[in-house]
């Protein structure tokens, strides 16, 4: 037994080292491919320095994990590092085709037009993940400029990058009314600062109505015409079809993954499930590399499933996580696993749109893309009728056989905070344990990592009457750590 454990530990260490080396190799390759351009880029966009901390983030996610659960998350990070390098290359070199887009706008159409999407929120999202205090300067800049401190910290950090001039040059801006008023309203300033032509998509409130698709398809056609007029891009329907077919391939794996996640014990949990979905379905149109990585992660999962092996040792709870995990503490799920035996089997970001795209005609593609955009993760949870929020929670809770709900109450998200009371009452009626922890997505000065842990610890001790698997992890001094 001891021998087996030792061999497992050695294997985990080797896997960890292997991906650490692969990541550095990819980062170096990116630098060496165009050293002067990258150096200039680092002066122009100082947030690029923070991306060098990626390996530390990957290791935080892998820490204490073992076997396939550990390998899956490291595999994801190695793919993301490589892909972010490609994204940065585009931002530094291909600016004449770069379109600045809002983060809820899926990129299939833009790429099919031969354009390159740059999600304006990328620095705001990524750098607090690397270093919890890296976005502080941007948020402070926005507040100095007069933006209230109670607005969501994601658009607030993004606004800081806009005001500092740290957004890459582009040829046009695409924005939407998703996922919230703050995100939507921030694009006026970007338009003002850059002077770029801007198109805004408007998802209706009753987006599930049949004629909402007609309205939104018309809006998408307006966007295509706008891009053809204002950028060098033109619509290549064959390319769009290929993008949609790739999406369908990925979605097929995702549906199989969903099936495995209903198993007991779950073969993978937490961020090993969430982060690959979050990146591969949203960051760029689905590439073959995304599909291959997803397939490999699925195979790791399948192997655990076939062997009846749990993703984590001592799992005691199957939880549904609602709302995004804190960007300043994305490895909180790792901590929950090791401290309390909580395995997150499903979460809001992953529980998104699940239909395949219809590629039978150009019109059919636009219609199913319209549906994917409107019904996408977060968009449908923070917009539209209240049933979008509650019914999804009950649906996911039942489907993935959860025994508790964890509500990550992001205090800047007014739409979600406005549902907490009813969610509490409904959970009480249904006798579902509901853990609510408050946090600020990008700002650990509002609620520190230990503040988050304390809220979870208190709930687990006082409500669930649980004992920690590792009491040494209840309090960790990481207030100033990356």
């Amino acid at each position, binding site marked *: 037994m001891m021998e087996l454990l030792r061999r497992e530990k050695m294997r985990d260490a080797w896997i960890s080292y292997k991906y650490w080396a692969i990541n550095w190799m990819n980062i170096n390759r990116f630098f060496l491919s165009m050293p002067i351009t990258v150096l200039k880029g680092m002066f122009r966009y100082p947030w690029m320095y923070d991306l060098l901390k990626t390996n530390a983030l990957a290791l935080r996610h892998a820490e204490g994990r073992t076997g396939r659960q550990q390998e899956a998350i490291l595999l994801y990070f190695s793919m993301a590092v490589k892909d972010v390098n490609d994204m940065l290359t585009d931002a530094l070199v291909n600016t004449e085709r770069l379109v600045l887009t809002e983060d809820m706008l899926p990129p299939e159409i833009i790429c099919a037009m031969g354009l390159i999407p740059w999600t304006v929120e990328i620095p705001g999202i990524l750098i607090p993940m690397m270093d919890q205090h890296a976005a502080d300067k941007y948020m402070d800049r926005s507040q100095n400029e007069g933006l209230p401190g109670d607005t969501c910290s994601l658009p607030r950090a993004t*606004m800081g990058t806009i005001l500092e001039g740290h957004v890459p040059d582009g040829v046009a801006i695409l924005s939407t009314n998703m996922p919230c008023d703050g995100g939507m309203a921030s694009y006026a300033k970007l338009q003002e600062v850059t002077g770029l032509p801007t198109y805004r998509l408007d998802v209706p409130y009753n987006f599930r109505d049949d004629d909402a698709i007609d309205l939104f398809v018309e809006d998408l056609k307006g966007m295509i015409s706008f891009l053809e007029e204002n950028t060098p891009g033109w619509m290549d329907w064959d390319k769009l079809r290929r993008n949609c077919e790739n999406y369908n391939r990925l979605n097929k794996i995702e549906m199989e993954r969903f099936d495995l996640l209903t198993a007991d014990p779950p073969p993978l949990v937490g961020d090993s499930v969430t982060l690959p979905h979050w990146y591969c379905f949203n960051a760029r149109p689905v590439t073959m590399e995304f599909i291959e990585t997803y397939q490999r992660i699925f195979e790791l999962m399948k192997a655990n499933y076939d062997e009846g092996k749990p993703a984590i040792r001592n799992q005691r709870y199957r939880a549904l996580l609602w709302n995004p995990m804190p960007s300043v503490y994305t490895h909180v799920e790792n901590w929950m696993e090791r401290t309390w035996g909580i395995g997150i089997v499903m979460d809001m970001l992953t529980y998104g749109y699940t239909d395949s795209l219809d590629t039978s005609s150009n019109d059919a593609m636009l219609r199913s893309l319209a549906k994917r955009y409107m019904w996408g993760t977060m968009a449908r949870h923070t917009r539209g009728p209240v049933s979008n929020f509650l019914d999804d929670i009950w649906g996911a809770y039942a489907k993935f056989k959860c025994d508790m709900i964890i509500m990550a109450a992001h205090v800047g998200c007014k*739409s979600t905070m406005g549902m907490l009371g009813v969610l509490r009452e409904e959970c009480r009626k249904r006798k579902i344990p509901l853990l609510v922890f408050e946090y600020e997505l990008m700002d650990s000065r509002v609620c520190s990592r230990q503040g988050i842990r304390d809220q979870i610890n208190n709930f687990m001790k006082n409500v669930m009457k649980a004992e920690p698997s590792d009491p040494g992890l209840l309090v960790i001094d990481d207030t100033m750590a990356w």
Partner: protein
Amino acid sequence: MQENITISFFNNLIKEPVNSLVQKALDEGRVPLGYSCSLIPEPLLSLGKLFPVRLYAQGVSGTQIADNYLSSVLCSFSRSILELAILNGFDFLGGAIFAASCDHIRRSGQHFELLGINKNKPGFFSFMVDTPRKVSASHVAWLARDYRKLAEKLAENYGVDTSDSALSTAIKEHNTFIMLLKSIGGLRKEDRPLISGTDFHKLMVASRLAPKDMLLEPIKKYLVHLKKQDGVGMYRARIMVVGSQCDNPAYTELIEAQGALVVADRYCWGSLPGLEPIPEGRDPYIALASHYLNMCACPRMMEKYKERIDQTITYYNEYKADGIVLETMKFCDLWGYEVLTMVEALRKADIPVVRVEREYPLTGQGQLRTRIQAFIESIEGRRDLQKVSMSTRKRRDAGYDGTATA
């Protein structure tokens, strides 16, 4: 009906949601419909025995119960409305119509259904109008579609005639009322306005809290009364108030108590740009949708930020204002972002501007008073500086300061 109508008549109407005129209408068997936003068309809610009453929660002493549902990070307007609803303060209403205007109001409105507000009252319903955030022919048609759905609900629950001709008549009557209010609003452009900002604010709030047909005569008489007045001549600065929705004249009163005169009100519940007639003579539902979408000056309209700035500057000049008080309600994301672009643009246009954050009920008067006082002093200082610089220029041109050249 008394012959001489003064502002106290309207002041009495805004003390509570069920004022004397609403009570009278209720006694006559009429049905008040509450609505949350200026994107809800008043003429549609004025068909037959119906009349619109804007949701108003001044006087709610706290939002302890609503905070449980909406949390304390939503704006105090949305929480106050829900609080009053939970306390049965809206039990006189026959329906509550909301617009999906912003995240806060949307959640507040959704709780009417979730919590079963007035659920035992026959005919009561709550309705969320799907209001687009941009203006195009298809978005106008989309909004008109929702107005028609609302009309169906009104016909079903209250048996009112919602035909095009009935609605066209309602639009005509609405326009008459609006033009009367607009004529009073226009008085504020004069150097000695016949009405103070506070009184006008009270009039505007009252005009949305009582049946319009019952208000028409009193407002006409009030206009006659106003025309006999000398006008407000003593003031330190003419102020334009811009920002989040404000249904509390105490805020205007506080500004005017510091010696300013509020001459223009570019906010929801205010008169700018709300008092424009609705085009008549075509499909009334499309006319309503087009009018309300085009008139909406709320930052929720995501494509119109430049128009909003231009419009603000136009009003500023038209009403001969000396400065702008930009008031935003705490936690309002839309106005939080709007001020970033607006303040910069106004300063570029050399317009003095002060930005204040406030709650729905009047709170923090001390701080607000100090800031307004300082702002007025800065306007006066600027005026003095301009006078000095003008006289220096005159002296220089005349060659008295030794700098003039031949």
